[in-house]
């Protein structure tokens, strides 16, 4: 039996993938995907949250203690493959997990990290959002400084502006080759604009935004501020973390 398995996996590795469609590729990877198996409870893991779309587990190779992986139960390779509703849901769960970490583990910050493609450091064939606690001087995820020249900046601006305008649904005269792909995306943005953000007025008065009653999620931030700090104890106040800037 073991031999047969080995032969199987061996032959799969040598399959010529260059002409495969994304679907075929997905099917192949899904068979061997450890994260799918965890979601299907075939492999045990420390699960922190689970719903119909998303599962959160502890990473067994943590960058820091409390490293959480948030990922869709459905098999997707990279973030761009994920349907929008799942994507949005994932980021909500990421926020929840980050919040949980700030309040349960001794840390004053969290990193949220996604790698799309091996060049970006992706190691598993299943899209993962990493959320892990950060502490001063832990040396993780240090971004180098790249010196962008004036010319490069201008070039980027020139190149990207028409596409950005298209993505956000603004017609631009210099729109170059009108690509279908981005046009379809533009459509979805219009939908979101209509569905989700009924009030445009809050943009003019930034200070009022958190208090507005027509924002779907009731914000409790202001309450926190008003309360005396006597309640603290072990409870980490998010405002403290936000205020580390001294601003």
């Amino acid at each position: 039996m073991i031999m047969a398995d080995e032969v199987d996996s061996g032959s799969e590795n040598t399959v010529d993938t260059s002409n495969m469609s994304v679907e075929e590729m997905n099917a192949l990877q899904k068979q061997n995907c450890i994260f799918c198996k965890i979601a299907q409870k075939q492999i045990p893991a420390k699960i922190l949250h689970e719903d119909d779309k998303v599962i959160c587990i502890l990473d067994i190779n943590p960058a820091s203690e409390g490293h959480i992986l948030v990922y869709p139960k459905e098999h997707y390779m990279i973030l761009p493959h994920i349907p929008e509703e799942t994507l949005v849901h994932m980021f909500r769960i990421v926020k929840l997990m980050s919040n949980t970490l700030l309040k349960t583990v001794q840390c004053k910050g969290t990193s949220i990290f996604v790698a799309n493609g091996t060049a970006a450091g992706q190691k598993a064939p299943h899209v993962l959002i990493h959320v892990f606690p950060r502490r001063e001087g832990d040396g993780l995820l240090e971004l180098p400084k790249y010196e962008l020249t004036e010319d490069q900046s201008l070039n980027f601006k020139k190149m990207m502006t028409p596409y950005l305008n298209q993505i956000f649904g603004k017609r631009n005269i210099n729109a170059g080759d009108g690509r279908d792909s981005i046009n379809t995306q533009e459509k979805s943005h219009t939908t979101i604009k209509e569905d989700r953000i009924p009030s445009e007025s809050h943009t003019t008065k930034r200070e009022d935004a958190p208090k507005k009653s027509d924002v779907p999620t009731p914000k409790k931030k202001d309450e926190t501020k008003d309360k005396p700090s006597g309640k603290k104890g072990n409870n980490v106040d998010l405002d403290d973390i936000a205020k580390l800037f001294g601003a």
Partner: protein
Amino acid sequence: MTVNCEICENKYQEKILFENEKVIVMLAVTPATSGHIQIFPKNHYTIIEQVPQDELDYLSLVANKLSILLFELLKVHGTNIIIQNGVPAGQTLSHFSINIIPRRTDDGLKLDWDMKQATPESLESIHRIINEGMTLLDPAKSQDGNITFDAPKTTEIIKADGQEQAFEKITPSISNKNGKTNYYLKSLERIP
């Protein structure tokens, strides 16, 4: 308008690529690679926990779309989406942002960490700590109302999503036409 915020005070106007009533897209203030862009909510928040759900939804969609755009436009081999949430995480601006970093195989960026395996005991203990914390954070279970937790409960999320099925499913733009190299597929192939 928040005082002492470089983004709200519009100090990097020359870097702005796009701006609407909800979002500011700009070339990164301190880029990590060429083409590194940063997405800011127009309203001032410092950390993700403060960003209201509807705004976070919008930002996450924008982040994904811009990541796709960088793939296609810059012909890069990968992208990183990074949120530096809090000063220890490397956050330098007091305004919340999502970083989209285009990656090339030879860019020399090292964002990995040591792949040290955690012991079952340490996983067990941290799992218990986080799980207990989550129970405490559950607003339904905190009677004193001391703990503020503005993220929705899981059940609420599911419900909310049920109602929001209306919004369109978008398949990513994987275009093979015109003999264009497909960068998604390329990246897929490289994954072990």
